[in-house]
């Protein structure tokens, strides 16, 4: 699957967030989008997901403009993995994952055997099948995030979009979730996620994209794109990078910001 964004621009009322975004991405890649608060990462994702419609430019999946697709058709191509959150009504993990299969049924139908098989397969992939009967609301944050990823897999879309998937997770769960995402990308999914941690991009991403001044400033292999200069320009603070000795695995540390006397 290929996602192609051409000259995308979007503004809220009188405030232009995205000026001209061009981006092209193929299956099998985990892409981290970096940008400071308010750079337009969420806006970009909401355009891709079809939640914002009044943009200029084009967003295409395999050559089809997403605006020509119905809500249901779009869901078969692009899935959204939200941050884990406490739901208004708690369902079992199985029901939660089954909800991902909704686009494969008619409106009046309830999930049948086919949908159940898909749901169990998705849970199997993420190693959470044993949780099927537990209540989603009683899971830990990391487990909830895995359930939401399984739900997106059950949706059978080739492109997964995530807005800061690790924002609510502890250090261990961040690593677990990122490992799973990397494995999914290797299986052929196209995963686009935003992150505030350059380290995550270095450690797990196939490509990093820098969103700045309403456009994609640079995109490519993280160690080539995310230089000290670029990070400094993006976040407005001095940043130092360290080589870990492993190939393409750098580590990032903020420099001193306050002048000490």
């Amino acid at each position, binding site marked *: 699957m290929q996602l192609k964004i051409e000259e995308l621009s979007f503004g809220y009322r009188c405030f232009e967030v995205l000026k001209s975004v061009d981006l092209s991405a193929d299956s099998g890649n985990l892409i981290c989008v970096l940008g400071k608060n308010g750079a337009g990462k969420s806006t970009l994702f*909401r355009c891709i*997901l*079809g*939640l914002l419609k009044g943009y200029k430019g084009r967003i295409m999946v395999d050559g089809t403009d997403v605006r020509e697709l*119905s*809500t*249901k058709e*779009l*869901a*078969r191509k*692009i*899935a*959204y993995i*939200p941050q884990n959150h406490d*739901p*208004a*009504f*708690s*369902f*079992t993990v199985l*029901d939660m994952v089954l*909800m*991902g299969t*909704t*686009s494969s*049924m008619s*409106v*009046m*139908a*309830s*999930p049948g055997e086919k949908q159940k098989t898909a749901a169990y397969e998705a849970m199997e992939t993420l190693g959470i099948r044993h949780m099927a*009967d537990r209540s989603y609301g*009683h899971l830990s944050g990391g487990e909830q995030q895995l359930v939401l990823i399984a*739900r997106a897999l059950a*949706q059978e879309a080739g492109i997964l979009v995530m807005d800061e998937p690790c924002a609510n997770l502890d250090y261990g769960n961040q690593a677990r979730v990122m490992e799973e995402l990397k494995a999914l990308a290797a299986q052929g999914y196209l995963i686009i996620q935003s992150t505030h941690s350059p380290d995550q991009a270095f450690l797990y991403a196939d490509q990093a994209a820098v969103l700045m001044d309403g456009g994609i400033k640079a995109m490519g292999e993280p160690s080539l794109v995310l230089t000290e200069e670029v990070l400094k320009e993006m976040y407005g603070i001095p940043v130092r990078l360290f080589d870990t000795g492993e190939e393409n695995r750098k580590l990032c540390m903020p420099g001193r910001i306050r002048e000490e006397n």
Partner: protein
Amino acid sequence: MTQNRKNNLRLAGMAALFLACFFGSFLLGRYPIHPWTLIKVLLSRIFPVTPDWSSQVETVLFQVRLPRVIMAALIGAGLSCAGASYQGIFQNPMVSPDVLGASSGAGFGAALGLFIGLGYRGVSLSAFACGMAAVMAVIVISSRVRTNPTLNLVLSGMMISSLFTAAVSFLKLVADPSNTLPVITYWLMGSLASIRPRDVSFAAPWIIAGMIPVLALRWQLNVLTLGEEEARCIGVNTKRIRVIIILCATLITAAAVSVSGLIGWVGLVIPHFARILVGNDYRKMMPASLLLGGSFLLIVDNFARLLTTSEIPIGILTAFVGAPFFLYLILREGNRV
């Protein structure tokens, strides 16, 4: 699997309870009817049975008790269905069927009808029309505002509700205190005492017509509880489903209120009780709400007509029973992990 079986068993139990309440309610009342007579009278409609009962029994059963029992069951089930639907749409278990102004609209319609001296049918029609109009106004107003659609609906609902409530107060103020005012006041309390066959033929089709789409769309309702954006990304046409569900729930509420007056608490307490018994999954929770709601109102209506020598308006009883029961449910839930 075991949980699933347990829920199915519970649903079967609720169905049994409902049937028991339904047929039991025929036997209760000022005019006692023996169970055996009831069976014979009912059978006589299908099979030729030589009547050994007075024609009075038949009149009581078919003209008074049957319509009343049918309406109690339908209104209880309907209000619970509407409440459960609204709760899903607004992702909030504390929402009741009058959140979008259907009840206060219908209340105003009835008060207006009584005030200008419309006949019985006119009052029902006016209540129904105003209930629907109130919710339509809410939908139109909220569709004009951008940003969060659910919040807008709730806020517009509150506005329209309080407008209609103010209008009812005004009507009461100017109504003739010797006859019109008590009639309006009594009507607003809610009662099933005056239900006759004509009410069944007026309200029942609307209530049933509203329930069917809601039952058919209950999986979509599950997805809607995730919230607007998540549901859309999963492939649900949220706008369309939301409008359909709101219209159906409104149809049910307006039709119910137009023949019975305001009966509170059912639409809030019963869905909540159903959630505790069978969980949040609408595939089970919606049928459970219908059965429990029907049983609940049948039982309460029996108390309404038997507790004292004169009838107690059922709206008062549902509040007396519903409010403490709801408190109990909340406290119980707080202790559960």
